[in-house]
């Protein structure tokens, strides 16, 4: 049984530590906020210029001037601060954000990430993704292990234009979780989704990864 979207989000949430400042990407990464463990105090940052994101507002409390980077209406918390986009990216590019969770189209075995454009299709633009991967200290990627046509997305080298070179620290797919201890090292297999065999994983993965000796 592959992991569901919610299980992917919960696995990423387990990487959040008490006191972390975290930026969550659009899509499945946004769900991570729902699975932060009790007792773990995390402050979410949004690159348009807000630190301390609250939940969606009640219908009668929607404020057009309080939005997140996905342009969704949200709310303030006691700790919330607002600032310019340039201060926001000083937080991101200056290494002040502990961790970011992003989606991906492809990840390569050397940590390259592609998640912003498919040549020949309409390109919407990188938004803040290139800044996030170059500046945030730890990058977790959540994605489906294979594309809709079955082709592998964890590759020897990305075929799509890069968002960043050598930037991914943790990769969680619906089939398995991979990590690397530092940006010089290859990815190591950490866990398989229930019922997924190592043989099956290898058959749908193009990238080289290490299977620890004691892996079971």
């Amino acid at each position: 049984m592959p992991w569901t979207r919610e299980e992917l989000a919960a696995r990423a949430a387990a990487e959040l530590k008490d006191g972390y400042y975290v930026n969550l990407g659009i899509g499945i990464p946004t769900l991570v906020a729902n699975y932060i463990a009790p007792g773990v105090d995390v402050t979410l940052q949004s690159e348009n210029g807000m630190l301390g994101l609250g939940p969606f507002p009640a219908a009668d409390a929607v404020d057009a001037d309080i939005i997140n980077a996905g342009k969704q209406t949200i709310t303030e918390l006691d700790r919330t601060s607002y600032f310019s986009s340039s201060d926001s990216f000083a937080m991101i590019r200056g290494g002040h954000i502990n961790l970011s969770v992003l989606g991906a189209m492809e990840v390569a075995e050397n940590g390259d990430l592609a998640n912003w454009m498919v040549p020949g299709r309409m390109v919407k633009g990188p938004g803040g993704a290139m800044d996030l991967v170059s500046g945030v200290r730890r990058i977790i990627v959540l994605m489906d292990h294979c594309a809709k046509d079955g082709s592998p997305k964890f590759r020897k080298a990305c075929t799509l234009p890069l968002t960043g070179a050598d930037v991914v620290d943790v990769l969680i797919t619906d089939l398995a979780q991979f990590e690397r201890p530092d940006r010089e090292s290859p990815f190591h297999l950490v866990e398989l989704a229930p019922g997924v065999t190592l043989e099956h994983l290898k058959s749908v993965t193009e990238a080289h990864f290490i299977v620890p000796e004691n892996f079971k």
Partner: protein
Amino acid sequence: MANKLYDDGPTALAGLLFDGMTIASGGFGLCGIPETLIDEINRSGVRELTLISNNAGVDDFGLGILLKARQVRKMISSYVGENKEFERQFLSGELELEFTPQGTLAERIRAGGAGIPAFYTATGARTMVAEGKEERMFDGRPHIMETGLRADLAIVKAWKGDTHGNLVFRKSARNFNPMVATCGKVTVAEVEEIVPVGSFDPDQIHTPGIFVDRLILATHNEKRIEKRTVREETA
């Protein structure tokens, strides 16, 4: 004192608009955009514009109305995903697009306004964004050179402004507005409320009046919401 307060959009933009000019606009998505001044630029019929703005509005609102009227030749933006007319013009080659990562865009505008012609950043190194740009290693990492941006005209939206041009923004509507206010040869601000000089606590002013040349009371404050998301109420 010089009077920065103008009666309305047409008088505030009088003498500033010309074909082929570069205009920088504050705002993120549809939040904190200078709606009144965009309307006036649309009405003026000025053409061949280069627009510096994080986003391109939607089809019938924000900078999208300038695109729809074919007033735009080029956009310098980080994300343009919400605009069908933009997509059509771009794919047909009518519109030029310079993608700039969002933080790089914020910093290019900040640098331009601060008189810094260029800077190095790791953002975009070894990606398509780096093509044609100088690469240099700092601390063992590749960085690319990005240039500062200046505009013939900068337009911003603030919550409150005093008659000296001091501005206060509201919540996440601040976004790109403070940097954009610094990068214009001329900067025009529209505000939801004009207050007398001395009303602001000097410690709480976000944009000092030196950056603002002209000020109007905004008459278009629709503040459209792009994605209205609400909490599910439990009965």
